[in-house]
């Protein structure tokens, strides 16, 4: 399956071209830094570190479109790079750690969205409850590990 993916014409094109891989990687880095920045902005507001004078809902509403748009771009660029060397990426330990952390970050986000954020009206302008602050700590930790493991893919 992974080998089949690697032998698709577009995957071969990325692997063989001099500039397609660096360009795709640059787009990936640009998009992922925007994702991290937007996520950090929401998390830091939940933790009371930044944007303290703005309601949580307003900070989330302004940062979420950036996070999702950039995530879509990073996901597409990342998938393109994965296809070009699918077999070796799948066997790469930092890559696996990165994927696990992305799944955990998604679960953390869903729990926050469907459970913790339900009572947001009561703490929108003030200090979020412990559950919300914990979600922010998990999120920040996971995204730092995602960046670090992503960077380590090329070093092992």
């Amino acid at each position, binding site marked *: 399956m992974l080998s089949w993916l690697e032998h698709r014409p577009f995957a071969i094109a990325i692997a063989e071209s001099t500039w397609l891989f660096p360009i795709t990687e*640059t787009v990936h*880095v*640009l998009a992922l830094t*925007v994702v991290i920045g937007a996520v950090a902005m929401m998390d830091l507001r939940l933790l009371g570190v930044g944007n303290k004078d703005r309601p949580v809902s307003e900070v989330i509403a*302004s940062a979420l479109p950036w996070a999702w748009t950039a995530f879509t771009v990073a996901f597409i660029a990342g998938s393109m790079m994965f296809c070009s060397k699918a077999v070796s990426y799948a066997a790469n330990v930092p890559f696996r750690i990165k994927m696990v952390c992305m799944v955990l970050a998604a679960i953390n986000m869903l729990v926050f969205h469907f459970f913790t954020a339900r009572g947001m009206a009561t703490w929108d302008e003030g200090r979020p409850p412990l559950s919300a602050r914990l979600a922010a700590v998990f999120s920040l930790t996971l995204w730092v590990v995602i960046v*670090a493991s992503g960077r380590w893919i090329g070093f092992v």
Partner: protein
Amino acid sequence: MQDFCDWLAATTLSQFFAGQDWFVPTVQTLHILSIAMVLITLGMLDFRLLHLTRRGPAPEVLAGRFIPWTWRALTVLLVTGALLIITEPTRELMNNAFRLKMVMVVVLILLTVTVQRASAREPGYWNASPGRRRLGGALGIASLVLCVGIVAAGRLIAYV
């Protein structure tokens, strides 16, 4: 410049950093996390200056709130960037993508100082006249282009 690189690479500090396998990826990770902070603060501000986002605080309010965070992140970027140069001087200092990146960084800093100073002058500064709106839009576009250019040049250091 090559002589300076050779001298730097021969220092105890450079040899020590280069000898640690974890050092470069760790410092690069911190560098990328700080870039994230710069991009989101300037990106949101630039979109507001360009009227691409219409809701939310006025540009000068965002500037007052975000640019101090930009400077904090930039401080981390300069420190981590310096550590990477000390570790691999020739890879960075002799590289044209790196040199282009540094020129763009200097221009972006000057541009951001300009936006910060103008924003502190009066409430409603960027919407006070059509001229000011155009100026804000031009600065916003220039800032976005520089941000993208800096990240691209930074990543391309490894390829040119």
